[in-house]
C-alpha cells in the first residue's frame, strides 16, 4: 500500500500517514471515554460525599459501573493502542503493518465500547466493571467487552507485525529503543491478559443468554483477575515507557543502563501474570501456600522491577541534568528541572505518586494476612486511584501535551493553564487517594451507596473521622474533576482551534534511523546520581515503616486461625 511519511519539524520524529491517523483516532476515542468516565466520576463523588449524597441508589450503582468501565477499560486501553503504534511505527520509522486490519480492529473496539455503554445506561447491567457472577448483566454488556478486547488483541498483533516490518525493511540500526521495548512488554502482557479475559467472559456471555446454567463464583474471581490485574501491568509497562520517553524528550536523558531497564521489563513479563492472586487473598478455597507463592515470589519480582524503574528514570534525568552542569549539591538537578513544562511535571508527579502512594500501599495489601485489613474497603479504590489515575492517567496526560504539536500539528492553547494542570489534577488526586485510604483503614466499604445505612434494621455508625475522610474525598474529588475537565477542554479546543503548525514535508520513503553516536566523553563514566539514591532511600524508609505499622495493627485484631 502506498503511503507517505512526514518528519515533524518540532520533534524530529517521523510519522507515517496511516499510523498517524490511527494514533489520532485512538487518542480521540480515549479522550471521549475519559469524558464520559469523568462525568460519571462527578456522580460518584457527589454521592459518596456524605453531606451531598446526590444520586439515588440505583443510579449511583449504574454511574459507578460506567465510571469503572469507561475509565479503567476504555480510556486507558484506547490510549495504550495509540502508544503501541507510536512506539512501533513512529519510533522505528517504518510503515504500519496491515493498516486495513488495524482500522477494522479500531472500529471493532469502538463498536464494543458503545455496546457496553448502551447496556450500562439501559440500566439493567449495574454489575460493576468486575461483573462478578452470579449477578447478571444484559448479554450486550459482555459482548461489547469481548468485541473491544478482540479489537485490542488484533492491534497488539499489528504492533508485533510492525516490529517485523521495521526489522525486515531495515528502518533502524541496532536494537529497538527502550521505549519500544517497554511497549513490547505491554503488548505481550496484553495478549496473555486478553486470553484470560476470553476464557472467563465468553462463558459468562453464554450464561447471560442462557446456554450455560451456572458459573462458579470462585473460579470466576480467580480467572477474572488474571484479566483484571494483569491489565494493570499493561498500564504499568505503558506508563513506565512514557516516563522514559518524556525523560528522553525533555532532557535527552539516556537510560542509566539499558541492561538493567530491559531486564526489569522482562521481569514484568515473567511474573506479573501470576500476581493476580492478591485479589483472592481473603477468599476461601485457595491454600495459603498458593497465595504466598503467587503474591510474594511472583509479585515481589514485579515489585522489584518497579522499584528499579522508579530509580532509573529519575536517575537518568539526574545524569542528563548533571551533564548540563546542574551539579551543585544533591538536588540542584531537580530544582532546576522545567517545573513549568506540563509534560515534565505530569511525568514527575506520576512517578512520585505511583511509587509512594500506589506502590507502597499495593504491596502492603498484597501481603497475604494484611489483605484482610482492607479487602473491599474504600482503601482499594484509594490505592488504585494512585496507580491508574496518578500513575497512568497523569502520564498519558503529560504525553499528550507533547503529542498535540507533534501529532495533531496544533499549538496547545491556554499555556498558562497547561502549566498548572498537572498540579491541579495530580495533587488533588494524591489527596483523594490518601483520604480514601484513610477512610478504608477505618473500614468504610467501597461500592457502597450510603454510609449511614438508611433503612437498615441494624445500622452501624462509622466514627466521625470516617465521615471527615469521605467529606474530604468529595471536596478534593471535585477539584480533581475540575483539573481533568480542564485538561479535556484544553486538548479538544487545541486540536480543533489551536494555532496550526507546520507539518513538515511529505516524503514517500522513510528516513532510516541511524545508530546515534556514542555518548561524548564515553558512556563508561556518566555522572553519579547521589540525589536519586537519597530519594530512593526516603522511599524505602516510608515503605518499611508503613509496612510494619500495618502488621502491628493486624496483631491487635481478634485471633483468627
Amino acid at each position, binding site marked *: 500500500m502506498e503511503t507517505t511519511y512526514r518528519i515533524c519539524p518540532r520533534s524530529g520524529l517521523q510519522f507515517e500517514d496511516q499510523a498517524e491517523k490511527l494514533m489520532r483516532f485512538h487518542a480521540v476515542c480515549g479522550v471521549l471515554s475519559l469524558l464520559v468516565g469523568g462525568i460519571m466520576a462527578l456522580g460518584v463523588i457527589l454521592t459518596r460525599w456524605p453531606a451531598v449524597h446526590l444520586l439515588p441508589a440505583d443510579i449511583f450503582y449504574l454511574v459507578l459501573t460506567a465510571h469503572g468501565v469507561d475509565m479503567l477499560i476504555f480510556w486507558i486501553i484506547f490510549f495504550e493502542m495509540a502508544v503501541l503504534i507510536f512506539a512501533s511505527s513512529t519510533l522505528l520509522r517504518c510503515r504500519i503493518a496491515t493498516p486495513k486490519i488495524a482500522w477494522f480492529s479500531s472500529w471493532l473496539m469502538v463498536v464494543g465500547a458503545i455496546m457496553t455503554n448502551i447496556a450500562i445506561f439501559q440500566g439493567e447491567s449495574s454489575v460493576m466493571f468486575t461483573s462478578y457472577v452470579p449477578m447478571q448483566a444484559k448479554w450486550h454488556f459482555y459482548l461489547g467487552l469481548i468485541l473491544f478486547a478482540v479489537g485490542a488483541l488484533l492491534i497488539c498483533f499489528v504492533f508485533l507485525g510492525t516490529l517485523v516490518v521495521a526489522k525486515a525493511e531495515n528502518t533502524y540500526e541496532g536494537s529497538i529503543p527502550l521505549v519500544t521495548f517497554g511497549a513490547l512488554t505491554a503488548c505481550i502482557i496484553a495478549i496473555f491478559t486478553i486470553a484470560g479475559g476470553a476464557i472467563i467472559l465468553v462463558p459468562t456471555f453464554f450464561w447471560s443468554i442462557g446456554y450455560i446454567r451456572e458459573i462458579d463464583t470462585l473460579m470466576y474471581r480467580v480467572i477474572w483477575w488474571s484479566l483484571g490485574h494483569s491489565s494493570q501491568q499493561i498500564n504499568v509497562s505503558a506508563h513506565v515507557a512514557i516516563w522514559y520517553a518524556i525523560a528522553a524528550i525533555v532532557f535527552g536523558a*539516556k537510560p542509566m543502563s*539499558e541492561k538493567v531497564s530491559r531486564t526489569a521489563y522482562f521481569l514484568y513479563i515473567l511474573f506479573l501474570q501470576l500476581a493476580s492472586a492478591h485479589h483472592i487473598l481473603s477468599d476461601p478455597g485457595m491454600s495459603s501456600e498458593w497465595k*504466598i507463592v503467587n503474591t510474594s515470589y511472583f509479585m515481589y519480582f514485579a*515489585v522489584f522491577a518497579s522499584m528499579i524503574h522508579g530509580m532509573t528514570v529519575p536517575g537518568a534525568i539526574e545524569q542528563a541534568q548533571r551533564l548540563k552542569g546542574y551539579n551543585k549539591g544533591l538536588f540542584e538537578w531537580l530544582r532546576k528541572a522545567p517545573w513549568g513544562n506540563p509534560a515534565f511535571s505530569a511525568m514527575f508527579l506520576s512517578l512520585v505518586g505511583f511509587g509512594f502512594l500506589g506502590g507502597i500501599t499495593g504491596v502492603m495489601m498484597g501481603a497475604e494476612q494484611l489483605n484482610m485489613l482492607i479487602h473491599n474497603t474504600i482503601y482499594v479504590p484509594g490505592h488504585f486511584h494512585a496507580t491508574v489515575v496518578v500513575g497512568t492517567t497523569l502520564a498519558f496526560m503529560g504525553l499528550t501535551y507533547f503529542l498535540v504539536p507533534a501529532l495533531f500539528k496544533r499549538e496547545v492553547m491556554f499555556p498558562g493553564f497547561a502549566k498548572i494542570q498537572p498540579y491541579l489534577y495530580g495533587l488533588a488526586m494524591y489527596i483523594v487517594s490518601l483520604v480514601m485510604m484513610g477512610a478504608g483503614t477505618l473500614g468504610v466499604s467501597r461500592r457502597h451507596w450510603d454510609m449511614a445505612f438508611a433503612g437498615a*434494621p441494624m445500622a452501624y455508625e462509622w466514627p466521625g473521622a470516617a465521615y471527615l475522610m469521605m467529606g474530604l474525598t468529595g471536596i478534593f474529588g471535585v477539584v480533581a474533576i475540575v483539573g481533568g475537565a480542564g485538561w479535556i477542554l484544553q486538548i479538544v479546543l487545541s486540536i480543533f482551534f489551536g494555532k496550526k503548525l507546520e507539518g513538515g514535508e511529505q516524503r514517500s520513503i522513510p528516513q532510516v534511523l541511524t545508530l546515534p553516536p556514542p*555518548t561524548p566523553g564515553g558512556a563508561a563514566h556518566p555522572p553519579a546520581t547521589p540525589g536519586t539514591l537519597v530519594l530512593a532511600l526516603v522511599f524505602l524508609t516510608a515503605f518499611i515503616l508503613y509496612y510494619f505499622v500495618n502488621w502491628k495493627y493486624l496483631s491487635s485484631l481478634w485471633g483468627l486461625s
Partner: protein
Amino acid sequence: MSAILPPSERIWWNQPVDKLELTWISIAFVWALVMFGMMIWWHAYGNQNLANETYRTTKEMFAAKAQAVVDKYTVRTETELQVPVVAPPPGSDIYLIARLWAWWPIFELEHGKTYTLHLSAMDYMHGFSLQPQNINIQVHPNYEHVIKITPNARGTYSIVCNEFCGIGHHTMAGRLYVK
C-alpha cells in the same frame, strides 16, 4: 542517545552497571525477600491467619446447619424482624448466613474463647466486614469457609456487607456481641 532511540552502543548488554544503581537493586532485592519471609513467619508466630479450610456446600445444607444451632442456643430475639440472638457454648461451631440483605443470626460470644465460624452465602457474593475491628473476608455461595475466631475485646460489633450485592447492599448490616 536516549530511550526513544536505539541504544548507542550496539553491544549494550556488556555496559557496566552504575554502582549506585547496583546498590539500590541489591537493597530492593533484600527487601522483597524480607516481605516474603514475613508472611511465612506470621503463619508460624502470628495470631491472625485465615484458615483456608473450605468445603463445597449447598444453600440448603448450610441453611440447615445454621438453623440447628439457632434452634438450640437462641436466648432472645431482636428488632421487629425477630432476629434470633444465639449464645452457643465456647468451642462450638457457629454458622453465619449471608443473604439479600441480612446477616443471620446475631451471635453472643464470650471474650477470650474460641469458636469455629462457618461462612457462606445464599445468593450473590457478600463481604463479611467486622466493624470496628476491620476484619474483611469474601463470602461465596456454595463454599463453606471455616475460621477459628477468638474475640479479644468486649463490646457490640457490626457486620457490614462490603461486596456489592444489589440495590439493598447498604442496608445489609448485622450485629455481634462479645461479653
